[in-house]
């Protein structure tokens, strides 16, 4: 799908990018429209330093995919890097100090906060220009600043330096820019207006806390900031730049301190954010939602779903909204007779049953793919239905010598004489030397499970035998049974073969 992109500029005019940028695919796990696209842009790398960018990205990527939920959902992501050189290395107010001439105009000490590293001036517009040119399907843009001073920032584009903690900063910042997570800091900063977020709230009534599903019934609310509660979920006071009246779910998570666990609520939100953008199912067949069937067919429905490393994504098939027991694969096959004439539905429900998510009100972790199937010229699929439609087993309304029960086994319409091509026929199968074997081929619509069909051999038309020493099965397909005599012709008197159909 081609898309028109609307570039909205708030007061700052976009500036053109002049330097030469190159795109590199770090990791590709699928089409861009079906994956989360993470894009790293190089900042403050001189041409001489630019070769280091790849390893800096690899460090960040390796760390991110060691963390949850990313480690289990790595195959849901593509990773790219856009390399562009700056005139100088290092950011403003960075390790080298002073002002630097860099492509995205990065600088520390934004708003007088030493570690607040942002891109400024024409930097954001240049970043968007490069993204539009190279990976317009970006989901998570990250600017890596080639400066070893500690720092980073969130916003539309995450920014992190190459300090040893840089990879952790990237994870924290995309918690904001990708997952909409709030800082769980409790330092009281004036001028910031807190609001309800997935991981912050002013709500203190247990049943109304948005992450209540994660709080054990024995955990006190509010929850003391004590070591015994450090690894569990609760309602800890102090969040979103407020010391009082605003609460966080974790005592100390990624959104509060680096080197800390992600936190279950944050992990849940990361995963919901992934699924808010991409479907669990990549593709399916038939592609269209309408299927018309005018003759007997084996109908095959299939889908390709994403899969986590824990195989938490599962599929269940339904026919006419009835669950089909055991139908949990990526393909579902059914003979058209089994559906019967008229309109029917076939539906695949794919759902990620990961324990990482307990709150999914929009059912983002679930996807239904449905087909509407209209069938004509179908015959009853069971003997009981056959009898109900056509009468007794011995009836022969078409007067062609084939009784109803035989026609059920063969799968031909009792109302009409059986076509030559659908009749069992005899032939000879060559053996070793001059040996030939009497053979009976039985075309059939499908394999029946509720009647017995057996090819028998006789030399006197009185005693009929079958099985080892008497007959040899050459083919036993759904649509064809071929059986030959075990003994070549010429031994003994006349040889005869028949198809015996037996109802229970």
């Amino acid at each position, binding site marked *: 799908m081609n898309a028109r992109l609307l570039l*909205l500029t708030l007061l700052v005019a976009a500036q053109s990018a002049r330097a030469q940028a190159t795109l590199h695919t770090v990791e590709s796990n699928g089409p861009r*429209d079906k994956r989360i696209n993470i894009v790293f842009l190089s900042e403050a790398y001189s041409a001489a330093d630019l070769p280091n960018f790849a390893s800096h990205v690899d460090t960040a990527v390796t760390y991110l995919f060691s963390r949850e939920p990313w480690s289990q959902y790595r195959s849901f992501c593509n990773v790219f890097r856009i390399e562009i050189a700056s005139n100088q290395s290092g950011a403003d107010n960075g390790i080298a100090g002073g002002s630097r001439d860099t492509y995205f105009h990065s600088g520390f000490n*934004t708003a007088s906060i030493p570690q607040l590293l942002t891109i*400024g001036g024409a930097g954001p517009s240049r970043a968007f220009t490069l993204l*539009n040119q190279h990976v317009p*399907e970006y989901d998570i843009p990250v600017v890596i600043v080639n400066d070893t001073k500690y720092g980073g920032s*969130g916003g*539309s584009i995450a920014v992190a330096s190459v300090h040893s903690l840089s990879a952790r900063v990237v994870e924290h910042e995309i918690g904001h820019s990708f997952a*909409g997570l709030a800082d769980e800091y409790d*330092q009281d900063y004036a001028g910031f207006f807190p609001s309800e977020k997935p991981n912050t709230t002013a709500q203190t009534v247990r049943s109304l806390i948005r992450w209540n599903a994660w709080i054990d019934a024995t955990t006190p609310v509010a929850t003391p900031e004590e070591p015994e509660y450090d690894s569990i979920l609760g309602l800890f006071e102090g969040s979103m730049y407020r010391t009082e009246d605003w609460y966080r779910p974790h005592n100390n998570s990624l959104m509060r301190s680096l080197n800390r666990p992600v936190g279950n609520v944050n992990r849940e939100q990361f995963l919901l954010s992934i699924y808010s953008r991409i479907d669990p199912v990549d593709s399916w067949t038939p592609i269209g939602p309408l299927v018309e069937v005018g003759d007997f067919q084996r109908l095959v429905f299939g889908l390709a779903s994403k899969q986590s490393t824990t195989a938490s994504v599962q599929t269940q098939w339904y026919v006419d909204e009835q669950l089909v027991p055991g139908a949990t694969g990526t393909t579902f096959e059914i003979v058209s007779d089994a559906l019967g004439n008229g309109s029917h539905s076939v539906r695949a429900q794919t759902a990620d049953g990961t324990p990482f998510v307990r709150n999914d009100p929009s059912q983002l972790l679930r996807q239904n793919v449905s087909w509407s199937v209209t069938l004509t010229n179908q015959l009853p699929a069971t003997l009981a239905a056959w009898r109900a439609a056509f009468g007794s087993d011995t009836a022969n309304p078409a007067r062609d010598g084939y009784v109803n029960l035989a026609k059920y086994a063969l799968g031909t319409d009792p109302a009409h004489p059986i076509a030559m091509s659908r009749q069992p026929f005899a032939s000879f199968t060559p053996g070793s030397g001059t040996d030939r074997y009497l053979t009976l081929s039985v075309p059939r619509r499908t394999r029946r499970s509720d009647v017995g069909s057996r090819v028998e051999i006789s030399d006197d038309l009185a005693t009929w035998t079958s099985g080892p020493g008497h007959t040899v099965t050459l083919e036993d397909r759904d649509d064809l049974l071929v059986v030959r005599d075990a003994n070549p012709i010429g031994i003994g008197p006349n040889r005869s073969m028949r198809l015996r159909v037996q109802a229970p």
Partner: protein
Amino acid sequence: MEEVRGVFRRERTPLWQAGMLYCRLVASDGRVVGERTIPAPDHVCFVLDPNVSTEAPVVARLTPDAPVLFQVRFDGIAEAVRLDVHRISTDTRPADSATPIGPLLGSIAIPGK
């Protein structure tokens, strides 16, 4: 407005949180012909420095001191005549169109319309 070619996905259920921006394309007859939500681009976060064991609270302005730039992507919708940008003030999306979403930050005419 800029046209780009890419392999874009259809939108699933967008995130809806107070503070995010809600962008919608509006046709000349007032119909909403496209909508997106994006994280607030002007809420700058920074990470506390773990190298400082007891980081002292400082008074800081957490909104940027300069205009911010963001972009929002829509399918090509020929009917759109303007883009409205709201700051979401509700925790869940209102079920009806009459309930205010939040303050209107800007309304920008689509060039050529």
